[in-house]
């Protein structure tokens, strides 16, 4: 039971982080350089999940996933199964939930690079895509790692959205935080202690590694 939940949680956080990185890299690069009037609007939308209670997200997701809605109906048509209570339903929910945690570190990194690097590459004849892949992305590696770690750990820590759209199915949608909630509610404190303690320790370890690595790379760059 615990192993199922651990496996599922890691798979969910991994898939979510990977998909978010793919979407967020161009988005963050655009946000870092654009002078468009739409920029504050896009930034606000991206930051929304930071301030909204997860129940708002869960509520809209439930309505969207219902076969009564067009999107929900189209999904059932395409894949033959409803999006609710499925792994991919959770992935979509988690992506919305963890979006700012991936976009924001990336955007700060790209902003920190300044325009002159891209301009220098341009004068040397590099295509904008070449500039992105060969210069901006490698330079953005620290931000990329921070974004991945934050997106991953934030998805592992997700609870409210999954509670509303998951359906608590072992091996499919019963992630660690939900399993823990079940054990606490049914007064099974022994297992609850194992799960909660395990989550505290592993999260602490991951964050420690991130900050230590950040600190060292700051020293390297500074020196």
């Amino acid at each position: 039971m615990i192993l199922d939940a651990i496996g599922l949680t890691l798979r969910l956080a991994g898939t979510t982080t990977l998909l978010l990185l793919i979407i967020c890299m161009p988005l963050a690069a655009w946000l870092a350089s654009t002078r468009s009037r739409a920029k504050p609007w896009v930034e606000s939308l991206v930051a929304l999940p930071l301030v909204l209670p997860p129940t708002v997200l869960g509520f809209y997701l439930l309505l969207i996933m219902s076969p009564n809605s067009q999107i929900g109906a189209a999904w059932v048509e395409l894949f033959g199964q409803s999006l609710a209570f499925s792994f991919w339903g959770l992935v979509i929910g988690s992506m919305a939930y963890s979006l700012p945690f991936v976009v924001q570190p990336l955007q700060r990194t790209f902003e920190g690079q300044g325009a002159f690097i891209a301009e220098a590459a341009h004068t040397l004849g590099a295509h904008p895509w070449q500039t992105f892949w060969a210069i901006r992305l490698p330079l953005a590696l620290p931000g990329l790692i921070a974004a991945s770690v934050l997106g991953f750990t934030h998805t592992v820590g997700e609870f409210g959205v999954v509670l509303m759209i998951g359906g608590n199915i072992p091996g499919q949608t019963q992630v660690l935080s939900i399993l823990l909630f079940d054990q606490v509610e049914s007064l099974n404190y022994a297992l609850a202690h194992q799960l909660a303690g395990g989550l505290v320790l592993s999260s602490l370890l991951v964050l420690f590694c991130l900050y230590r690595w950040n600190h060292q790379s700051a020293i390297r760059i500074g020196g």
Partner: protein
Amino acid sequence: MVKRLLAGVWLLSAAVWAEPPLTVAVTASFKPVLEALSEPFTQASGRSFRLVSASTGVLSQQILSGAPFDVFFAADRAHPQQLLKALGLPDDRVQTYALGTLVLVTQDPAVKSLADLRDYTGRVIIANPLQAPYGAAADQLLDQLGYSGTRVRANNVSQARQYLSLNLAAVGLTAASVAQDLPGVQSIDPALYPVLEQQLVVLRRSDQAVALLAFLQTAPAVQVLRDFGYREPAQP
């Protein structure tokens, strides 16, 4: 300014002297029944109560932490019995106030009756068996029927109802009290699942509490109970 302050203090103390209304903690699934009984109770007795609603588990934790409730309507037997022991209350503070009923909700043509669930491969929504007595009863019933598909476990009977009303799955088992306005509701023979005894605890005995319990035994109150899909307990 001083006069106003004094007037305020006087008003506050007047409010304190008036008989405070009964504070009743009620499990979420039974809240609509007590809401419906609130008005008739006031008319019959000249007294009133206010409701605090959450799940049975949450309310029990709050009571153990000293929440100031007078009466607690739980959704099961286990929690009131635990509270009785933990708070050192006498046995007569607990009584069964209603028997819950389970219903089958089906919008799937493949499931015309309970027996069809044996070979059904679609998902069935139930309440979480670990937390909700209705979920545990539904879980046992599904085992008994030989259902082998995926059980979607909603947090409680209300969430099960929500999933069913949004058509997130076509079949579910939930409490009759929350399934009232859903399409495709079928009653289930109560002999097929364990008795869903719902008990209450009188945490602070008062005239008001006694009046409320007496009111629940009256014919109009029992009728409301039935209207909401409960059965009244057998008289001792």
